[in-house]
């Protein structure tokens, strides 16, 4: 098993110059997400029944930072949300990506790349659905019309899970590998910046965005030692 410790410690303020000759209408939030270890006991090992083989894919090859979503909470967004279309692939008995953030009204495709049947279902209050079983090469899609956390599972393979964050505004991002993130084009104002991780939940911080300026903020998420 991987021992995951994110140790990106440098604090870099990123200044983005406004376009010459034009006064910027919006501001920027930039910063770092730091995943800190929080060791909480150890999971009980099982000698009885081998963990189910999950094929060649090692799910931990995706850096944990990619399972973090940074977004603004309760940010009022005027106008229609731009609907997007994303993909949540089923590959090597794993949902890829593990965490997906979309705007309300967007559609997600669930293509099956495995040589076996898969299923996609959710019990979440934001979207309760079951796409039934379908074989390799097929794809089903689901449109999410309600904001919230949607946990997605496969009822054939109980070890498969993914999370789709359905958000009311487009101000969200997934940090880069080094933990840095940037939310551009924000109307000035005071916001609640949230760093979210599946097992940690939300970590909030208040941030003030001024016109033409970049506010910097660092988030720390205590991710459990997963060993």
């Amino acid at each position, binding site marked *: 098993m991987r021992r995951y410790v994110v140790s990106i410690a440098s604090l870099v303020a990123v200044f983005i110059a406004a376009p010459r000759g034009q006064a910027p209408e919006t501001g920027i939030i930039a910063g770092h997400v730091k995943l800190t270890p929080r060791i909480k006991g150890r999971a009980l090992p099982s000698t009885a029944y081998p963990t189910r083989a999950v094929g060649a894919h090692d799910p931990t090859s995706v850096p944990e930072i990619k399972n973090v979503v940074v977004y603004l909470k309760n940010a009022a967004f005027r106008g229609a949300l731009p609907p997007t279309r994303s993909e949540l692939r089923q590959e090597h008995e794993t949902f890829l990506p593990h965490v997906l953030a979309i705007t309300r009204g967007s559609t997600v495709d669930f293509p099956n790349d495995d040589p076996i049947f898969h299923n996609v279902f959710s*019990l979440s209050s934001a979207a309760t659905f079951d796409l039934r079983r379908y074989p390799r090469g097929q794809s089903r899609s689901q449109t999410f019309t309600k904001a919230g956390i949607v946990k997605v599972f496969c009822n054939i393979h109980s070890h498969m899970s993914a999370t789709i964050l359905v958000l009311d505004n487009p101000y969200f991002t997934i940090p880069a590998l080094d933990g840095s993130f940037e939310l551009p084009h924000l109307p000035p104002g005071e916001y609640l910046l949230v760093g979210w991780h599946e097992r940690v939940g939300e970590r909030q911080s208040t941030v003030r965005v001024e016109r033409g300026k970049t506010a910097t903020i660092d988030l720390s998420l205590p991710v459990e030692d997963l060993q």
Partner: protein
Amino acid sequence: MSAVRARPPRLLFKTLAVTFATVSIILVIVFVVVSISIGDQVRESVTANLESSQRMFAALETRRQRELLAQASTLAENPTLKAALDTYQAEARTSSEAVKSQLFATIDGELRKVAATIESDAVVLVDMHQSTLAAAGRMGERFPRGRPIALSNSREGTFDGIARLGGGVFRIVAVPLHYGDGATVGTLYLTTSLDTAYADELARLAGTKTAIISDGLMVASTLPAAAGREFEAAMASNRLVAGTKTFNGETYAFRRLVAVGDTAFYALGSIDESSRGVMRQAMRNLGFTALGAMGLALLGSITLARLLADPIGELSTSLARMAATHDVTSRLPLTGSSLEIDALTETFNDLMTSVALAEADTEAAYTGAIRALAMALDARDPYTAGHSDRVSVLSVAIGRTLSLSAEDLEVVRLGALLHDIGKIGVPDAVLRKASGLTAAEFDLIKEHPVLGARILRSVPFLAPHIPIVELHHERPDGRGYPNGLSGDDIPLAARIVHVADAYDAMTSARAYRGARPSGEALRELWRCAGTEFHADIVGALATALPGVTYDDGDTVLARV
């Protein structure tokens, strides 16, 4: 003066007593030996039984735990259960109660399905903080939502643990619910209540009594209450793995079947109880054997007693017959039953032979003495010399003619020899007087039979001869003396001697006359037959006379 002596017991009773005593002692020894050996054997067998129970239980238990884990692991892969749990945890903070209760309903439903497929008292789902989220199964209500479950121990590397909850002790097999990314969302506990029902089941499988002790306290047992308390106390002070101890007066062998942390499962076998059954069986067999042995002993001693007593009884009967008839000449027959008894019989016969010889000697001496006395009397008068001898010979000859028995002839012989013994009291002058006896003198002579009888009475040996001496002058017509008896009242022996006396008197010379010839004497006798003499006796004399010889070889007729 001698104290009253009890009669000794019969031989049979003695042999019976000796045999029964011997058999009883043997049986007692056998009983003691059998009891001791049964005690040892039962102890060994109970201990061995516990050992095999322990091995079997340990093997079964390992397998059972592995199977439970396998089952639990499979159940932990229930996609709906996991999805509901994961979704619930993701939404716990944000969702409405309605949504949460719906998720819980899903979790509860899935858990119930799981519980229905597994042999477990309760299936419990706990979150990452060891708090109960949901429970199902027979004892599900013992695990209320939100209650944390603390495992008091868990063996390294396994999910085997003990939890104390709500007054109960549970054995727990735990499996995590996790996803492919390694994230654990909860733990599924399969719990088994360590209660009396479990102890009973364990007892049934192990074939022994069982007790479960957790942290020094008795959780459940199939022991009687009092013995259970003592076992608990004994185990609290020192945790023994195996041994033998007495609880509430009953000896138990015990052995720890398996230990999970501070909780131990014991199997106990009552040595006393096992002994009782075996002992009862052994005693029944011993009883039958004893009965058979006693029966054989009875037969044996009766046979032995009869072997000994019968020949002795035979001898004793023969002796009693000999004693009754004063028979010293008979000889006891040899029984041939045993060397000792035959030797005794021969010795007795030898003794009787010598007694008979001694008796014959004694009688010969008596007879000799009496004859000498009679001859001495006869010698007082030269004319009557040899008279008594001759009368005796004649009387025997007459008696033989009359077919008297040998005994009667012997009585006649001696009686005739003594018939005139009373004349010892008659003076010589009167006896020798040739003729002219006065009446007084004749009365004196007539006294001699009574006098003779009186003399003989003082000698018991001579008692049979008294009638001859006393009555040899009685006549059939009743004119005889001393009693004047008549006819058949006069004894035969006396009649014989009367005739012989008269014959000899007539054929002998007297001082006053010469001897008459035999024929004349016979004629005289015939003349007086019926009055003075009995006719049949005279007839017998006449028949006998030709064969009569005296000691000197002369015949009576020859002398005439």
